[in-house]
């Protein structure tokens, strides 16, 4: 029993954080988000050079074969630096789905190699999400038709933009016609792939929400330590302190829930859906509390376009209902908790 990360995993996270701190500064993100496509091939190239797009790709296809547990650290960094959906969706969620495709799918290894090289964007249209994120700049879209999985070239789909309040988000209604040429899985296999993709997608946004929460907390601590009223920093007032202490506490106790869920996904555990939904709820609530208290302690500055808090706050508001809203996840938790009391209680945390 060792519910911790290895030194290597932690060091890798640290390296990614340092890289994104320099390369994805808020002022740069703002510039990128102002463009029509909202994405920067240059930033994507740099990220790929760091090997970030190759993390999940199996070693046989030029990747690092990293699992969901290590990704639960990575997604927090992507959230912390508000890296748009395309990266996690391609390098983590889509990679998981494509890796699970049968060898008979001719393009499988080619897609995986191109993901590792960083020269393909893949969007994932899971039925739980009404719209598809980053469909517009994608090269390939993974779309659902019933249980079937279709890999649709961008040229065969129309994307109708649905702008979000979060400028990092590029959502689209995808209009397409399923046909046998695009179908890569169906029946039981397809259903299992969509089910696994759901858990991975939820895990991905959960980690990002937690990273966003931490970023908003850090911004709020910095601001309240500097901003003076009544002749002293407002961060010295208990009312302000307690707001931020509550956010810190919420974040501390969401982390292990996320890690437990990541392990459940990585090992296909029986209670995976409950673990993952618990993580989503814990991380989403931490992010929303960080936003609520963050804007409060920023005062009027928090309500401006100018102060960076809004970038992370809006993304937190948006991601909270992506990959299943709270009702969806609460229902999954309730299914276990209110259904079978025998499966609860002390000593069940690790499925004994």
């Amino acid at each position, binding site marked *: 029993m*060792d519910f911790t990360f290895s030194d290597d995993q932690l060091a890798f996270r640290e390296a990614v954080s340092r890289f994104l701190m320099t390369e994805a500064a808020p002022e740069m993100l703002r510039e990128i988000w102002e463009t029509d496509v909202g994405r920067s091939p240059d930033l994507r190239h740099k990220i790929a050079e760091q090997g970030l797009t190759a993390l999940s790709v199996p070693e046989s296809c030029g990747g690092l074969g990293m699992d969901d547990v290590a990704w639960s650290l990575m997604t927090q960094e992507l959230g912390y630096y508000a890296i748009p959906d395309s990266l996690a969706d391609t390098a983590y969620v889509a990679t998981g789905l494509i890796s699970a495709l049968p060898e008979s799918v001719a393009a499988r290894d080619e897609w995986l190699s191109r993901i590792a090289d960083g020269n393909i964007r893949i969007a994932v249209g899971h039925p739980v999400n009404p719209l598809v994120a980053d469909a517009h700049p994608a090269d390939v879209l993974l779309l659902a038709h019933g249980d079937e999985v279709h890999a649709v070239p961008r040229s065969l789909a129309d994307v109708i933009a649905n702008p979000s309040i979060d400028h990092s988000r590029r959502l689209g209604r995808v209009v397409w016609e399923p046909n046998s040429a695009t179908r890569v899985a169906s029946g039981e296999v397809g259903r299992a792939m969509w089910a696994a993709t759901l858990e991975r997608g939820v895990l991905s946004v959960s980690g990002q929400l937690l990273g966003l929460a931490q970023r908003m907390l850090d911004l709020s*601590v910095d601001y309240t330590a500097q901003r003076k009223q009544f002749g002293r920093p407002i961060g010295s007032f208990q009312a302000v302190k307690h707001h931020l*202490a509550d956010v*810190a506490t919420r974040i501390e*106790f969401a982390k*292990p829930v996320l890690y437990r869920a990541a392990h459940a996904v990585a090992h296909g555990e029986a209670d995976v859906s409950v673990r993952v939904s618990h993580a989503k709820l814990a991380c989403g609530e931490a992010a929303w509390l960080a936003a609520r208290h963050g804007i409060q302690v920023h005062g009027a500055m928090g309500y401006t376009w100018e102060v960076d808090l809004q970038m992370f706050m809006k993304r937190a508001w948006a991601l909270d209902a992506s990959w299943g809203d709270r009702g969806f996840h609460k229902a999954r938790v309730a299914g276990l*908790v209110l259904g079978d009391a025998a499966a609860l209680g*002390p*000593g069940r*945390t690790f499925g004994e």
Partner: protein
Amino acid sequence: MELAFTPRQRAFRAEVRAWLADNVPRTPLASYDTHEGFDQHREWERRLFDARLSMVMWPEALGGRGCDLIEWLIFEEEYYASGAPLRVNQNGQLLLGPTLMEFGTEAQKQRFLPRMASSEDMWAQGWSEPNAGSDMAAITSKAIREGDHYVLNGQKTWSTRAIYADWLFGLFRSDPASSRHHGLSFLTVPLDAPGVTIRPIRALNGKEAFAEIFFDDVRVPVENRIGDEGQGWHVAMATAGFERGLLLRSPGRFQHTARRLVALYQAHRESADRDPTIRDAVCESWMGAEAYALSAYHTVGRVAKGARIGDEASTNKIVWSELDLKMHETAMRILGARAELVAEAPEAEDGASWLEGFLFAQAGPIYAGTNEIQRNIIAERMLGLPKS
């Protein structure tokens, strides 16, 4: 990350589970806030000790069995899952015990710890004073050195179960010229010493659950001091760290409460569902208890790798105390008009155990450092915000 228990850990769990199944009293003991119940609990502690299950983490030579933190978590899970009695000597075992391990001399450890593990000695805590609550550094009770004795004068209060206890540990001002956290010493005091007067205080449940203690020229040998003279604050803060942290309230306790709450909800589903927020609160309770358990395993794993539990322990205290309150509030709401009935009431449900727990849960955000103090600590030490 390796989330399987080792064969040794599984065997330990099985042993504990089997022993508890054979030994946990079938009818609940009387409240340990009564003489009768206190004696029953002392007897229960003795049985635990004889099976070497009283203080599993302590070294064998001191009455324990040398378990590591993971085994301790396993023990606690099984203990609470079995519905075993609450631990009556926890002030000594969980607060003073770890302090003695860290600051006590070999002789002090031998003298105090085995008798504490077996509950031959019951311990009360002597920190708070009428004018030193959250502001503990305002302590004025004195311990003036006279040769190889200290002479104690002053008053302590909110000392849990002190009217039944044999010993007290607490902070006294050994340097009369000192102020705040300087010049304090950490002393152990036999409560039958001449000059000690204990006056019970009735708690919310009407029972004499705590007491105030008066010291009039009470002579305590110097060998009863834990740590150096004048270093009492440092020694006490280490104890406070343990207290706020994991040891005092292990996750098994709250997971067990969450499971009982689910069962209560299931038994009253039809009436409970008329209030749509109850169902959500029940699910939240399970998630909260589970998150606390996961955090404990994560922390324990980090400690095993050499990390030290620091100020993040303050987040623990807030989480378990507020979770406990929330769970008991939800139970009261489910029980509805019967929730107010005390144990003697013929129509009280579940022996009014939810009501007892509800009352005790009110104290959680107050004792062991109020949650407001914990939030200050988090803000100032974890987040680095400026001091008030």
